């Protein structure tokens, strides 16, 4: 990506101040002594929390501090909950070479670890669908995919693979149907969810043509030694039960100029990522020079996730 080093993440500016606030809050909490009263006031604070987009910078910092304290006490290690904002002039695009994908699911598990998906009940933001190679001639009909293939070795004879996750639609049905506006598209094209505003009605799951959205049916479980403490408030921070979650293109990484975890994990280089607004980016090269397509193009959701034959 372009201008990789010029960017100052929003978070860097607020970090020292927040650390100070956190210390002050911790001192205050110990002065009050943990009791039913403080537990109650803590819950009320969460209950009356505003919609993320209506929060002031102070509100966001207070939220980050509160979340960090909560996760630190739950998982017993320091946490960073960033709120890094979008970068001007950047809209993310994803490219996936279905000619190269071997169906190894390394992306799936890298994603689970990076993004703190629940291990029990199991949630996978990426699902890899297996298709019969002969079907490829008729195009990809998602209704014929199998996400549960289990072979000794991949790729299996006569099969091909299509990993699928959030397609970051430009015209996203999920954000339209959400009754509380708890999910929206950020200026850099990432569709995010405010986990503290979502009411868990699952209308977005019904509306998503790609099965990208996942609900926390039970209390999400992440072993403390596996939890990733480097998080984003709209991304991979541990989620509460009863809300919807999905791929965010690793918002905690990409807004700091890094690749999504799945791109790094892919052993065959099938996954490409970059800035759609930068004419010199790899993703723009792929769009200009490869045979690309999007899933369910007839629905006009305008995904920013492109598949191509390398």
């Amino acid at each position, binding site marked *: 990506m372009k201008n990789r080093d010029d960017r100052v993440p929003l978070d860097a500016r607020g970090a020292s101040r927040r650390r100070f606030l956190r210390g002050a809050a911790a001192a205050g909490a110990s002065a009050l002594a943990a009791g039913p009263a403080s537990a109650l006031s803590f819950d009320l604070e969460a209950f009356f929390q505003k919609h993320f987009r209506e929060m002031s910078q102070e509100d966001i910092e207070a939220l980050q501090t509160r979340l960090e304290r909560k996760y630190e006490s739950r998982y017993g290690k320091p946490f960073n909950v960033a709120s890094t904002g979008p970068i001007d002039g950047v809209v993310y695009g994803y490219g996936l070479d279905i000619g190269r994908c071997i169906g190894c699911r390394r992306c799936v598990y890298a994603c689970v670890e990076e993004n703190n998906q629940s291990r029990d009940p199991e949630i996978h933001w990426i699902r890899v669908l297996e298709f019969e190679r002969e079907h490829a001639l008729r195009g990809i009909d998602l*209704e014929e995919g*199998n996400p549960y293939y289990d072979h000794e070795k991949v790729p299996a004879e006569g099969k091909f693979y299509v990993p699928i996750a959030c397609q970051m639609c430009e015209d996203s049905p999920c954000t339209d*149907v959400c009754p509380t506006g708890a999910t929206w598209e950020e200026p850099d094209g990432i569709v995010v969810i405010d986990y503290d505003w*979502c009411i868990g009605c699952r209308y977005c799951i019904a*509306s998503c043509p790609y099965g990208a959205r996942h609900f*926390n*049916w*039970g209390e999400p479980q992440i072993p403390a030694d596996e939890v990733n403490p480097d998080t984003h408030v709209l991304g991979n921070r541990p989620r509460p039960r009863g809300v919807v979650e999905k791929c965010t293109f690793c918002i905690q990484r990409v807004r700091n100029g890094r690749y999504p975890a799945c791109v790094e994990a892919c052993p065959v280089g099938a996954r490409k990522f970059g800035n759609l607004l930068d004419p010199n980016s790899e993703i723009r090269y792929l769009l200009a020079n490869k045979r690309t397509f999007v899933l369910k193009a007839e629905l006009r959701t305008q995904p920013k996730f492109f598949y191509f034959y390398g």
Partner: protein
Amino acid sequence: MSPLVQFWRFVKGSLAVVTQGSRGYFAWVVLLLAVIAVGVWAYANQIQYGLITTNMRDQLSWGFYIGNFAFLVGIAAAAVVVVIPAYVYRWGPIREVVLLGELVAVAAIIMCILFVTVDVGRPERIWHMMPLLGAPNFPHSLLVWDILVLTSYFVINYFIVTYLVYMAYRGRKYNAAFILPIIFLSIPLAISIHTVTAFLFMGLKARPFWNSALLAPRFLASAFCSGPALLVIVFQILRRVRPIEISDAALRKLGELLAYTMAANLFFLGCEVFREFYSASAHVIHAEFQWWGLEEGHGIAGYTWFALVSQVIAFVIFVVPELRNRLPILSVGCVLAFAGVYIEKGLGLLLPGMTPDVIGEVYHYNPSLNEILIGAGVWGVGALLFTLMAKVSSAISTGEFRYQPIEGSYGRW
């Protein structure tokens, strides 16, 4: 005495009415309270462990609750089926049952709201979708529209029944110039609650089975079957247990009405089936799941056929005057119509729409016991509300509960 004080006496009197009654009445109320208690216990379970206590999963994210919701919106809307002929066409015999029809509507809306509430993962955040308090995604989200029209419909109907009942209690004739415009307003609102509920599903391009323009007309047609069918049954029970006047003529009129609505309902169903199977695009897989099942020994095909057969039999009963004019046979038709629509517009609509899911997975859903108990509790709340409201209104129409100028003597009931 100020009107407020008088109304307060009415409320107190109503409470006295519902706490007295026959042994059968108390047995019924206690039974309903027990069902509600079990439902509350099951809901506490769900609150404690999350919606994992249901059998819904990501592949099938709406199930028993939303199925019941869609069905009950129809029952609520169907109150207008008796209002329209009674007030617009001045059909004499049906007029006396309008009030009871509206009571059914009020109870049904409460059940609708409860079914949506038990379905959400974070019920304590429901206020996030309310105007002023939260951030409702209006006008984009059809769910916000649905809550708006349901709330308006509830307020209007509740006002109408309270006004009519209170006027009867005071022994006065209702002010037609005042209440009729409000009753007329409830007619388009009734149509709108069901249309908006249909739009909630219809607007989803990800779900081709629902993405059909016929869904809203079908919703209305089936609602106008299940609603009057329920009323015919309820009215016959009511006039057996309470000394209130509901003429056979009114019931037969409803039976006649059902002949038209069931004809429309079956016609629409035929249109959908034709389109699905004749064109047989990739999307026909949902209809195949609905009518034949996708894997041996699973699925809902048995229910689908049962719903079709019972609605066809009901249609024959409604359309042949010699059959529908015999009340026991009419009642059989009504039970069949109600059961048929409950299946067709409950899980019969939900499951094929989401099976297979958007990436082709077939998940066989059956509601969990906990889900069924919560659902039963909600139905218990609706039945109890209707029972109590019908008790008060029937005590008024029989003259047992009347406004008395002297405090403390309400007569016997």
